[in-house]
């Protein structure tokens, strides 16, 4: 058992990644943060709409789309991946709908059948071709952030821009002479996260109303069905861009954990959204150092750290936390019954 937990060294596991290993550290942490932010912001609405497990289903079945793309020997570039993911996501929604409508199988079993079949199909298709394609089946499950290709995106800059960028913090990471050097996948994920944040901000009212009160949304002229399908489409895109780094199953945690933690701490949607981003940042940072310490899967460690934050919030939340509940119940017991009846009558 001793080999399981290596000795924790502050210098080696916390300081060193940010000094000598800064280059890879920054890209990995940024990737994790972008994934967690994009997933977490969307996940909030899944939680509100009680569709957390539809997120699970879509994240699994995206693999079938990728599998088909692999078998058709398509280039796995961004556009192909997005189209494959969209098709797979829509297919999942459709299969669930068909099974649910034409048989007496309940919705939960329909979800279970749809995503497991598509996931199995995806694994088989990819296994067929695994000799020729760089995706392997374990990577499908938990991804590997460390394998995200680094620094093959070069952009020449004008001297004026170089001067401006040089003054930014940590410029030695992304500036080589007069070239801007970036990890393309991280940049893409950053754009996806930014797009999600923008959409959530622009359509804040529509999402809010249709999530809480579809009838009111209808009377306000908001097309709730359209919002639903748009959400599913966005979910497919986010899931497929997060796929390579966190895999099909851990992306579920990225979707649900930040939002669930925020829901324990607040009941106001703007606060919840802010807390989601905070959870994403903290979970990524803590997870990265956990992974450095234990030398284990980085994506797994992100989720374990996020789960630890969730447990903390569950225990310590000022209003709904286990401690607060316990405290309230103890105080309730101590109060004599007469006092309760007198205060309630005084209130009247």
């Amino acid at each position, binding site marked *: 058992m001793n080999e399981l937990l290596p000795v924790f060294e502050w210098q080696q596991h916390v300081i060193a990644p940010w000094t000598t290993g800064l280059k890879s550290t920054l890209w990995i942490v940024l990737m994790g943060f972008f994934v967690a932010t994009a997933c977490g912001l969307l996940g909030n609405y899944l939680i509100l709409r009680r*569709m957390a497990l539809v997120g699970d289903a879509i994240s699994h079945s995206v693999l079938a789309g990728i599998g088909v793309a692999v078998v058709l020997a398509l280039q796995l570039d961004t556009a192909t991946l997005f189209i494959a993911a969209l098709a797979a996501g829509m297919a999942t929604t459709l299969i669930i709908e068909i099974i649910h409508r034409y048989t007496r199988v309940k919705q939960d079993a329909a979800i279970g*059948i749809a995503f497991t079949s598509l996931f199995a199909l995806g694994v088989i298709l990819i296994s067929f071709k695994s000799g020729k394609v760089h995706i392997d089946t374990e990577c499908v499950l938990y991804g590997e952030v460390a394998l995200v290709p680094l620094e093959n995106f070069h952009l020449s800059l004008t001297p004026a821009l170089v001067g401006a960028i040089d003054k930014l913090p940590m410029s030695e990471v992304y500036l080589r002479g007069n070239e801007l050097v970036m990890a393309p996948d991280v940049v893409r994920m950053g754009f996806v996260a930014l797009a999600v944040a923008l959409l959530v901000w622009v359509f804040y009212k529509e999402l809010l109303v249709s999530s809480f009160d579809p009838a009111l949304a209808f009377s306000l002229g908001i097309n709730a069905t359209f919002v639903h399908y748009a959400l599913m489409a966005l979910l497919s895109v986010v899931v497929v861009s997060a796929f390579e780094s966190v895999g099909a199953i851990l992306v579920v945690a990225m979707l649900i954990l930040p939002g669930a933690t925020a829901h324990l701490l607040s009941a106001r949607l703007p606060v919840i959204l802010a807390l989601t981003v905070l959870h994403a940042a903290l979970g990524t940072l803590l997870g990265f150092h956990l992974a450095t310490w234990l030398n284990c899967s980085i994506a797994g460690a992100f989720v374990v750290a996020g789960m630890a934050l969730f447990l903390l919030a569950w225990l310590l939340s000022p209003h709904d936390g286990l401690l607060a509940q316990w405290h309230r119940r103890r105080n309730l017991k101590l109060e004599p019954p007469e006092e309760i009846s007198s205060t309630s009558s005084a209130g009247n």
Partner: protein
Amino acid sequence: MRHLPLIAGFCLLAAAMPVWADRIGDISETSVIEQAKRFFSFRDPSVRYALIGSVLLGISCGLMGGFIVVRKMALFGDTLSHAVLPGVALGFLWNMEKDPVAIFIGATLAGLLGGAMVALIRQTTRLKEDTALGIVLASFFAVGICLLTRIQKMPGNKGGLDEFLFGSAASIGRSDIILMAVVTSLAVLLVGLFYKEFLVTSFDAAFARAAGFPVNIINYALTLLLAFSVVVALRAVGVVLVSAMLITPAAAAYLLTDRMHRLLGLAALFGVISGAVGAFISFLTTNIPTGPLMVVAATMVFALAFFFGPHHGVLMRWWRQKSRSARVQRENTLKAVYHVLEAREFDGEGVSLRELAERRRETLDEARAQSDALCKHHMATLHDDGDAIHLTPEGWQRACEIVRNHRLWELYLTNEANIAPDHVHEDAEIIEHVLGEETVRELERALNHATRDPHGRVIPGLADLVSGSTPFGSPETVTGYTSR
């Protein structure tokens, strides 16, 4: 219960046969047919183990899957199956080898812990069930992944631990089989002994509580058995797809029967079939894991039940609906013929197609198609070079029945339900096709065998129906009933 002898037989077979062939995985270059021959000769111990293993997992998953599908707990099964992963890793860490018993205990404990955490989150927070399931599923899985990747970087022999993710029927050994057999027998035995208790709590928990069943204990027992069946299937199917072996065969069985014991039997059968087919195909190919193949086989079984199920199948329902609407169409044509004859006071032979088309406000071709349909069902014959139809006795009887049903119902609605006479026609148009003889007798009694409908037209009576008399008499002989 009736599978027990089968299991025992398989176990004996496995134990008694000497191990003389080498493992099939050792042979790298053989043709598909060669491999299939090896598979069906059952000489390889690994083939036998894989087959017995898939039979066992099919039975245990089918049984428990039946319960979770009718209890709407399908996704709880999914969560439980992901939550066992850290237990698998810890069971491996116990003495750094794939000891089936240690892994079994670790996985079961982890699964139960996951189930308890779902319940606790739901009880103490505002988070809904789906969120609680998602949190436990993904978090436990992440802990398991961290442990697995950590173990793989530790020194020592740790090969094959990733088989637990997607499953590998070929790696099932003798000790695995013994454990699987023990656990499956236990599950079958418990379900057999406490069948009534499981049944009642699954369908009506409130009634079970009122009748004095220990509902909580039964639910815990069910969760424990569920964890057992997940662990049994773990080796062959893998953590990720175990839930499919729980849900899909049981859902297919759910489409085929309404009785719980038949559902459980069918689910176990489907589980066995898909498990065996998956194991077989994974032996023919080299690098495809077993779990996904079994799941795709199970999905095929579900698809068959979905399309061809005798009662709830999509094709059968489509066919039933089609034949029903064709019957309604025929009956409407018969009714139109009756109306035409009635309008000219049952004078003259048969009805020309032109009259029929005018009556139904249709084209001549449509009228011709409908009279062809009537002829095909021996309800009418064509005359005058196909320009007129005559009803046969059967056709005439059905026509009278439909008109009678229609007018009786109109009268009933006006007299007994106080609906205005000009509002009863639409309802009668629908109900005339479904009224049975007994209901008609009751209606007639309730209406004192009236002979005229609210619009003053004659209701055809018993005499027309029984004698199958031709429509060419006077109205008085046609009506049958004498007016009061």
